[in-house]
């Protein structure tokens, strides 16, 4: 194990602590209402949804954590992948047919490779340890889904607005790959800009989630920093590769077999 979590126990807020935290919600909602801002309903819904969703996930993961089997971890990650693929497709306006399944498959592939490499080799968590696989998997999926859907949306936009360019290139004997070079480069840059920007300011403007969580869990700050570096590289890899793969698949979906544009 190259990096090791310090196992100092984190204090449990307990159900009473949860109730006390709920008071904070009550205070902010009451304050808003007192000032004549009608946010009561929304505040209630947000409070209930946060509580229910997180407790439900907590229960499910508690159950999975107690088993530590590849099958259960894979089942949870597979469900998350399907939701991510479906959500990502929803972020693209008037998508090409087949984008949803393509996105899901790309995310599944990137998740499997990245997660196994990082958990088994980089972090050194041997075997099906849900404590590493589920949180890392969730981070990979969330980020890769954002990057892939940004790439897909921008590619669609570029092909729609640059249709003359693509047709002109095809008419001069370009392959679809050659005809979409510019659109692909722009889409890839658009997809990776948030990731790169985050890498530039990380630790200076804000302390990222993994590092914060580890310090709350009692870890040494330097060790937490190392973990965060691993996470940043892991996310850059999964974002970049999923954006590239989605663009590769899209460029097949965007043309007929006779190289006629579908957008």
């Amino acid at each position, binding site marked *: 194990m190259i990096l090791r979590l310090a196992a100092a126990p984190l204090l449990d807020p307990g159900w009473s602590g949860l109730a006390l935290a709920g008071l904070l919600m009550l205070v902010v909602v009451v304050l808003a209402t007192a000032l004549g801002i009608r946010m009561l309903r929304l505040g209630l819904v947000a409070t209930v949804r946060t509580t229910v969703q997180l407790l439900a996930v907590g229960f499910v993961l508690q159950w999975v954590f107690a088993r530590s089997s590849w099958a259960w971890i894979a089942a949870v990650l597979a469900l998350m992948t399907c939701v991510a693929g479906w959500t990502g497709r929803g972020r693209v306006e008037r*998508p090409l*047919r087949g984008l949803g399944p393509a996105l899901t498959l790309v995310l599944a592939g990137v998740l499997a490779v990245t997660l196994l490499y990082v958990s088994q080799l980089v972090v050194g968590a041997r075997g099906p340890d849900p404590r590493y696989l589920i949180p890392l998997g969730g981070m990979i999926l969330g980020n890769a889904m954002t990057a892939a859907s940004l790439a897909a949306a921008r590619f669609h936009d570029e092909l729609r607005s640059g249709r003359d*360019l693509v047709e*002109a*290139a095809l008419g*001069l*004997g370009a392959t679809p790959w050659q005809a979409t070079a510019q659109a692909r480069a722009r889409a890839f840059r658009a997809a990776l800009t948030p990731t790169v920007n985050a890498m530039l300011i990380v630790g200076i403007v804000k302390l990222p989630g993994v590092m914060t969580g580890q310090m709350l869990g009692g870890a040494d700050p330097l060790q937490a920093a190392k973990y965060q570096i691993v996470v940043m590289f892991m996310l850059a890899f999964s974002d970049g590769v999923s954006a590239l793969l989605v663009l590769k698949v899209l460029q097949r979906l965007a043309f007929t077999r*006779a190289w006629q544009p579908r957008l």
Partner: protein
Amino acid sequence: MAAVRLEAVRVRAADLLRGRADAEDAAGAEALVLDGVSLACEEGGVLAVLGESGGGKSTLLRLCNRLVEPSAGRALVEERPVEEWPLPALRRHAVLVGQRAVSFGGSVGDELSLPARWAGRTPSEESLREVLGVVGLGRLSLERDAARLSGGERTRLGLARALLLEPRVLLLDEPTGSLDVRTARELLGRLGEWARSRGVARLVVTHRPADLAALGGRAVFLLGGRLHGPFPADAVLDGGPADPAVRAFLGTLGRAEEDAGSANGAEPGAESGAGRGARSGRREGEA
């Protein structure tokens, strides 16, 4: 042997949109864009295509290098059905230059040589100079930023780019659209010499009958999805052939010329008026 041939081609609007992600946007998809169109253009020959705006002229050109599939009938290049051609080879053999000038970015030299580089060739500076000369841009520096060229210069650069591929068939969609009458005539004249000396066939969509004088050859008219002609270019220029539909079409062009208010007596002026009239008519059609 015809360099390019269409045999009883029909194209339904619905088939133009099939497989497109935006197909639900289309209205009137059952209409026929082309209805039984047959034509042929010999090696080294020229066929001008005139007709109503939105009447399928661009679709007709796209059939010849398989950017569009016919719903019925077939398209042949060198008497070989286009589906039997390997794809990049077909589109380098029969090159399409679209209506709007398109810039791929970079210098004039980059713009010119990109399609050749797609084909895995690096054209010599001499060949770049030669094609620039054909389109009347012989004095243009190869290092110049292509984005800074005027609209007319970019149109001509787009044509030069196609010539560099040494095609056997040129499919030109309104190559003179952004040029004045005199420049258009000079361009078509030099292009004609270039093409005849190499035996290159030309299918030229144009909205101005005046281009026929410089193009020569024959002209067809695409009216209501049906093809009329071919007629010798001279016959069209001398008041129009006997076909009543063609006469009526040429008549509307003449009226558009009067509407444009530029009938100032001199013949070149009248020609340019016809061009402008026809073009403003097309914009209404597109709006």
